[in-house]
């Protein structure tokens, strides 16, 4: 350990590795981590809205399907879900490439967790809003689209940001189903150079920066939505 501080050659080697690994890691972020996050979140959010609507609908079978889906996803580890999709399904002769398998897994995961957020947000909108929409003649879908979801969106921003930030970090699990995202690249370089601490710290810092930037976006979104409420 002391050599790190006393041996100039060791320090130079570390700096070299840090510099030369930065590009491949950032490439992993841009080619995989970010697309994986954005695509999965978009699909997941759509799935979440549908699931939330199914949960609050008066159609029993829809309610039950939505409940089972949310329960199954929340009740099993994400890594197990990914392994089933990527290593399990080929047994049934369903073979999915690493990236699409990861997208499916993360989307299903986000869909389940975010559906509870959206359901709560919809239920938090006062009943009078539905009634006012009814009395001006709106259909159910018009009420949702024009009146309820825009207000629910405001309430959802902080908890959905949590989901989003968790997703950014969870994409590191895709490394275990052979997606060459950032963390997998860090592992590969670490295995080659034996500089585990350096590479994993580097990966950690990159994740942290990503999440920090996202929390800035969250703040701006909240401000935007808050223009119509008194503070």
């Amino acid at each position, binding site marked *: 350990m002391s050599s790190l501080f006393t041996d100039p050659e060791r320090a130079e080697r570390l700096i070299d590795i840090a510099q030369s690994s930065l590009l491949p890691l950032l490439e992993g972020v841009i080619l995989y981590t970010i697309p994986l996050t954005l695509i999965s979140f978009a699909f997941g959010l759509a799935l979440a809205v549908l699931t939330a609507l199914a949960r609050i609908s008066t159609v029993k079978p829809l309610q039950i399907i939505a409940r089972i889906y949310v329960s199954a996803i929340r009740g099993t580890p994400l890594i197990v879900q990914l392994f089933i999709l990527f290593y399990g399904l080929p047994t049934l002769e369903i073979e999915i490439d690493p990236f699409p398998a990861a997208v499916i897994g993360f989307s299903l995961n986000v869909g389940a967790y975010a559906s509870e957020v959206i359901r709560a947000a919809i239920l938090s909108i006062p009943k009078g809003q539905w009634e*006012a929409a009814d009395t001006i*003649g709106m*259909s159910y879908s018009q009420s949702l689209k024009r009146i309820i979801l825009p207000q629910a969106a405001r309430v959802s921003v902080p908890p959905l940001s949590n989901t989003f930030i968790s997703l950014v970090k969870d994409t590191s699990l895709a490394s275990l189903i052979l997606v060459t995202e950032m963390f997998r690249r860090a592992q590969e370089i670490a295995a080659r150079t034996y500089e585990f601490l350096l590479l994993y710290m580097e990966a950690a810092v990159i994740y942290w920066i990503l999440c920090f930037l996202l929390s800035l976006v969250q703040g701006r979104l909240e401000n935007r939505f808050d223009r119509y*409420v008194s503070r």
Partner: protein
Amino acid sequence: MISVRNLHKRFGDLEVLKGIDLDVQQGGTVVVIGPSGSGKTTFLRCLNILEAPSAGSVKIGDQTVDFSRPLSKREIASFRKQSAMVFQHYNLFPHMTALENVMEGPVTVQKVPKQKARERAEALLTKVGLGEKLHEYPFQLSGGQQQRVGIARALALDPKVMLFDEPTSALDPELVGEVLQVMKDLASEGMTMVVVTHEMRFAREVADEVIFMDGGHVIERGKPEDVFTRPSQERTQRFLNLIQNTDVL
């Protein structure tokens, strides 16, 4: 214009309306009074099918609905076009400006072109005295101003009938007058209105008929001066004494 026959409403075992009849002439104003729990608000909500009546029939304009059988969504939607509702708590859309609130029904539901809807909404808001507040959000308006936006929003639908559910009950006393004035103007312009309210002075000045409800029944009905000064029923007398003593007037 309105004709209600033997309207019943049951919530489970609780019968809230026990056979209500009502007739309102075109351009007429009926004020419904009664203690809380009398069923007056439920009655008003039934006229718009915000609550589905359990039995009876309601005719508004040339449309009649009979509640002895379940109604389709289409039937409810078509019947609702006849009337517009003003709520006790305004129920404005908080994410829209005053102008957008008033435009929403015409543009989204009636598919009126935006430019035309905007002009109409501006005119209506000006009419209720809010020409200067077109682009304010509801939270930036006082209660009285919000309720006037609520009235403009209802008028924008060109209803045959306006339904008011205690429109001034949530307001600070000094804001009640501005809302009542708008309603008086509407009445004098010939709008057909059913108003649930405790504002006795408004009832005296504007109502063609006052209906006193209690326990799901109409106890007494008549011209405001008759009902207020010489009620024929003891229960009406007791209610009037009560609200006069507590200075609701």
